[in-house]
């Protein structure tokens, strides 16, 4: 990993911008700073991005660095990996991570293994980014959470911000990182507003953030469900249950030390993960906690995941399928033997 500088957001100027603006700001600043960085994907240039993340970037950087691609994920992902191997630093936008599945061979079989298989001759400094998880009635095939599937592969880094500030800080770090970074955004969060520092802003990988302090139960989450956890924690506080909410920010590397520190204090842990439960980051956290915190636990690590079915289309079913605040509250009460 390249050297990162942590800048305390409270020390620099911030203003309220949307999650999508924070992503664009990080990409734009890095493209001004480093001519090797370029963006490619479907509709990123002339249409200003399917979700307007790359709005205005074609005007500033021109068609050599903001590249519209055919609808061919396997082709443009593979091309970008080749560019990365040869020294450029591509950012690949998948309109949805659901569509990355047709590019599984280049992104899983080539990019993460390249440094290892070439004996160190070729690295792969590339960022794959796009919308992950249920976007709201998009149906099962367009609602993929790839955390469980892709985090299984050694050699890649997986980043999943939950707020605009982290979106900028983590994206900047991702572009400067020398390894392939899988950057998971959420269509549901692109319009979320928050204070974001101006200028260079980097959030280091592998450092969880305590989003709410508490004493009775540790809630571990990442990405969009962190916000569900904060809602649940506010609800549980009314019942006298004080939850500590940890935002992991990166799944690989996983900041298990911060989780251990919190669980040693609370003795209870609920992991909230929007991927399916079987073989997921949530099950990995539970497994590592049982290894490191066995004597500190008063109950097994509870997990709240999306239901173990294909994502439903119906609005009410989709809401119930997600690890929503009510389901988190129920898990916390059960974990604390207060159900």
């Amino acid at each position, binding site marked *: 990993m390249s050297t990162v500088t942590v800048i305390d957001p409270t020390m620099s100027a911030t203003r309220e911008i949307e999650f999508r603006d924070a992503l664009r700001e990080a990409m734009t600043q890095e493209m001004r700073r480093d001519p090797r960085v370029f963006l490619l994907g479907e509709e990123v240039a002339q249409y200003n991005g399917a979700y307007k993340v790359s709005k205005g970037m074609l005007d500033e950087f021109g068609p050599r660095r903001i590249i519209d691609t055919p609808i061919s994920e396997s082709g443009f992902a593979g091309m970008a990996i080749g560019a990365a191997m040869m020294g450029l630093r591509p950012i690949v936008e998948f309109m949805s991570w659901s569509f990355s599945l047709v590019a599984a061979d280049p992104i899983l079989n080539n990019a993460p293994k390249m440094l290892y298989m070439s004996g160190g001759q070729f690295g792969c400094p590339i960022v794959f980014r796009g919308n992950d998880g249920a976007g709201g009635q998009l149906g099962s095939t367009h609602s993929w959470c790839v955390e469980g599937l892709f985090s299984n592969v050694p050699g890649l880094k997986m980043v999943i911000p939950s707020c605009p500030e982290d979106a900028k800080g983590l994206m900047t770090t991702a572009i400067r990182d020398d390894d392939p970074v899988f950057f998971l955004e959420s269509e549901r969060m692109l319009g979320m507003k928050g204070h974001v520092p101006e200028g260079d802003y980097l959030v280091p990988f592998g450092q969880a953030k305590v989003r709410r302090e508490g*004493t*009775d139960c540790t809630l571990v989450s990442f990405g969009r469900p962190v916000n569900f956890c904060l809602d649940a924690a506010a609800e549980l506080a009314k*019942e*006298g249950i*004080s939850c500590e909410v940890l935002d992991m920010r990166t799944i690989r590397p996983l900041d298990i030390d911060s989780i251990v520190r919190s669980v040693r204090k609370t*003795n209870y842990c609920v992991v909230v993960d929007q991927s399916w439960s079987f073989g997921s980051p949530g099950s990995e956290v539970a497994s590592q906690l049982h290894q490191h915190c*066995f*004597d*500190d*636990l*008063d*109950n097994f690590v509870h997990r709240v995941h999306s239901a173990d079915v294909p994502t439903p289309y119906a609005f009410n079913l989709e809401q119930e399928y997600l690890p929503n605040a009510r389901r988190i509250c129920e898990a916390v009460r059960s974990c604390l*033997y207060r159900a």
Partner: protein
Amino acid sequence: MPTTVTMPRLSDTMEAGTVIKWHVKEGDTVASGDVLADVETDKATMEMQTYDDGVVAKLLIGAGDRVAIGTPIAVIAVDGEDASSASGANPAAASSAPAAPAPAETPVVVTGTVVMPSAHADNGARARISPVARRMAEELGVDINSLRGSGPGGRVIKRDIESAAARTSGGTAPASMMPVVAASAPAAAPSLPVVAGPGAREVAVSGMRQTIARRLVESKSTIPHYQVSMRFNMDPLLELRKMLNAQLEPQGVKLSVNDFIVRSCALAMAQHPYFNASWAGDRIIIHGEVNVGVAVSLPAERGGGLVVAVIRNADQKGLRQISLDTRALAEKARTRGLGPEDMMGATFTISNLGMYGVDNFTAIINPPNSAILACGAAVERPVVRGGQLCVGTELDATLSLDHRVIDGAMAAEYLTTVRHNLENPATLLV
């Protein structure tokens, strides 16, 4: 290796049990969870289960036999095993185990199954206890074998250890703070079976409610209680309090009437050390620290009930500190719950129902204390002062006392000191 089934501990106070009826006979195949026998304890008749699969190789005692906890009563073997290789399988050895004295009261027959009577199954099965509870039990010196777990399947969990530590004052309290009344009193089971009539509703009894029941039955049935009351003129104190609170408001301090009472009672200990003492059977222990317990009621959403929060070294603390301590403990009790360290070691207790508009009441002594002060509200009454009828504010306080430690005249002298402190409140400031 065949497994020896021993008489289990089915209640905290059980010393021996009687097999009322065997549900199995030799040669029967049993699976974990099957009922082996009905066992009568000092309190109830309960079903006893097996934790092992196998064949009942031997029943070592007959129906009606009464044996001490831990005595082998049956052998369970897997098919083809020789039962005689089980430890303690010799009936002669079993019969030599001492039987405990007969129970003192009529047992109540309880229906239903005790799934996990104690954390430790005496037949060698592993204790069901959460990892952190096991670690805390070691640290606090709590005997997990005597606990009944409140978790699923009888698992002993953190709160069971915390309440056990609070109940016994734990191994960490100084010896002088340990309860000196042996915790052998029966729980508050009625002497006649209680029948739920039509429209009745059963409410599960929480661990705290059980603790309240046991401790107060023990207190009321073993301590010779009596009461002495006195009425205090609160006018000077209320005037002083009003002035102080106006001056302290910018600092966020608000003194309650109870804070003044805590300090008055604590200061009076210097002249009346027997009020800070415990009856220890053959001697009286006068404690070195003055730790005043304050009864705190818990809101219904925290399960109700009450706990005693302890203001340590209250005689050495000013009103401001007493006020801050009390408020912090009450807040903690009502939100997160008190830890054992917040509840251990009270040497005198105050219960105040004044804020509920109660004029006067009597309280039950909080063992191992020798006295508890029950305070009502400060209310305006017609009073005679200097031969004149006028309106004054008065507060009624009633001491409940352990006559083994404190006689009536001593109680009157103590209350006189407290009255002097409250009616001349400037002395409480220094």
